[in-house]
């Protein structure tokens, strides 16, 4: 892994970045995969990101898992918290009153779902993470970046493609 090189190009708009991605895809350069190309931008641009290929998002599965666990465990937790099996129950009092528990279960269902959704997102982001040496603060302002991880011998043709598509700045490491 450590022998991989990184190349970052900055573009002034999404259109040029999308063209550069398409050119990379069609280039058949040996030593990199499209999965190793990353688009960095100040806003989300699904159309440009689509050029990179299918990158599915699995967050909703975790939301669903959170909802199911929240409902089930929530009801069980509340019921076990209120149930008291050590003394004789008085007549007419349910050990576990279902209607009030449904209210609390509903809240826990949402809370657990929110927790699972956000935790899943942070995991998929691979955060907290460290910024690479090629990080450019202009990306958080108004530039669009394309970062490619490749073999060292692929850096030159990749740079050539970026130059052809009017990259404003190209840097590479190591």
């Amino acid at each position: 892994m450590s022998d991989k090189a990184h190349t970052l190009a900055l573009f002034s708009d999404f259109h040029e970045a999308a063209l550069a991605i398409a050119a990379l895809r069609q280039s058949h350069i040996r030593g990199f995969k499209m999965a190793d190309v990353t688009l960095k931008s100040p806003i989300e641009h699904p159309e440009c990101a689509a050029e990179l290929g299918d990158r599915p998002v699995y967050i909703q599965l975790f939301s669903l898992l959170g909802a199911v666990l929240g409902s089930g465990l929530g009801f069980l937790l509340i019921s076990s918290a209120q149930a008291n099996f050590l003394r004789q129950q008085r007549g007419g009092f349910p050990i576990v009153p279902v209607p009030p528990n449904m209210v609390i279960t509903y809240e826990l269902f949402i809370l657990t779902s929110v927790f699972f959704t956000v935790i899943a997102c942070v995991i998929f982001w691979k955060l907290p993470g460290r910024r690479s040496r090629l990080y450019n603060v202009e990306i958080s302002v108004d530039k669009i970046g394309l970062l490619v991880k490749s073999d060292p011998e692929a850096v030159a043709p990749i740079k050539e493609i970026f130059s052809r598509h009017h990259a404003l700045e190209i840097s590479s490491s190591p």
Partner: protein
Amino acid sequence: MAPEIHDVDHETEVAIERRFVAKAKDIDEDIHWAQINEDVLRSLERPRPLFWVIFFASLALFLYGVACEVYQYKTGLGVADLENPQVWGLYIATFIFWIGMSHSGTLLSAILHITHADWRKPIYRFAEAMTTFSLMTAGLFVLVHLGRLWQFYYVAAYPNERWAWPNFTSPLVWDATAIGTYLTSSIIFLYFGMIPDLAICRDKATGLRGVFYRFLSLGWLGTDRQWANFRVTYLTVACLLIPLAVSVHSIVATDFAVSQQPGWHTTSFPPYFVAGALYSGCAAIITLFIILRYTFRFERYMTMPILEKICKLTFAISMVWTYLNLIEYASVWYGTDPYQKQALIFRATGTYAPWWWSMNILGSVVPFALTFKAVRNSISTLMIVSLLLNLGMWIERFMIVTPTFAHGYYPWLWTRDWWPNWVQVGIILGSFGWFTMLFMLFCKIFPSVSMYEVKEMVYHRRAARKVRLAQAAAMPSEA
């Protein structure tokens, strides 16, 4: 410079836009992305002097409230004149008021987000902050009202070995759970939505501030994978927050509705509370919009067309509230319960009649001012109207709580008119100071305008304009 997406010359563009765009724009579409960063980041450093005036005034109010609370805590709830039958006083009325205020953030962030109303983008952040701080303030009232602060955990749903507390069939336990869930989810939603902007702050800040923003931004890089996951997460949490917000205020309404007290035992209470919450939240948004716009020099982002849209939304919700209010009066008036009817008559003609009429006029008549364009375009008039609406909604909560205690089933109650004393008023003022202080601090430390969302807004609007221009150019005969 922002990415350029249109290539029609300026004169042609202006000529075509005049034909197609009759209305004022929500935001200047040609504003550069770098300018957006600069304007918003400047707000974190150099606000107008009014910021410090508001901050120190709210700090003073807060300290006064703390002094009153300490006095009440050390001496007992008697110093607040809380005794039978008036056991709730202003505390619970103000608790409902703050819970209601919290609904504005959900409305602007979640409901308008899933309905793709992009004009919300420059203003939703501070509405979310309002939600969080309102809930924190509301939560304090549960403690203040308890008197015995050390027994606060009685309302939490913890294991029931003692068989006395918590009472799981009490709506107060539901309340604590609902508010805890809403507060936690709101803080997560607020923080999560800020991460891309915190990364921008991180890139610009130095020293301790830089460390602070670096820690909070979690290493955000703005990659395509991060954005895709971010969007889905944000949308999912927004969808979860909407039923949560409705449930929270419904449960607060249930505190009243499940009791047998005259004036409270009505099925329309939950929707009535939710509508009232959205209403007071919208009115508060107008107030804070005007303050932030001036204090932090956000005139380019918090524009008059956006303010006008909030005014229209507020008016619409005020009519929903008015309708539900009338439904409640009608169902009591034409119902068969004489006690409910007596409670209503007492509200309209008894000791609290001036307040009841004030509530109806401020809540149902004053909003009609918002139907006039001249009012919607006048900042000072809007400030006054929004404050009046807020006052009306606070009185509404006071009118829900107090007259019922003063006119219950027992005749001995009917001579017990009650007015809040200085301790209660001091704590209430302190809560406003606490909320304002936290809110202003938030706006000084965190970007109160969402930079990445405003960038998206101008980007997509420019793209839409490009399409319009292309369509116009393709139809020369209609030009």
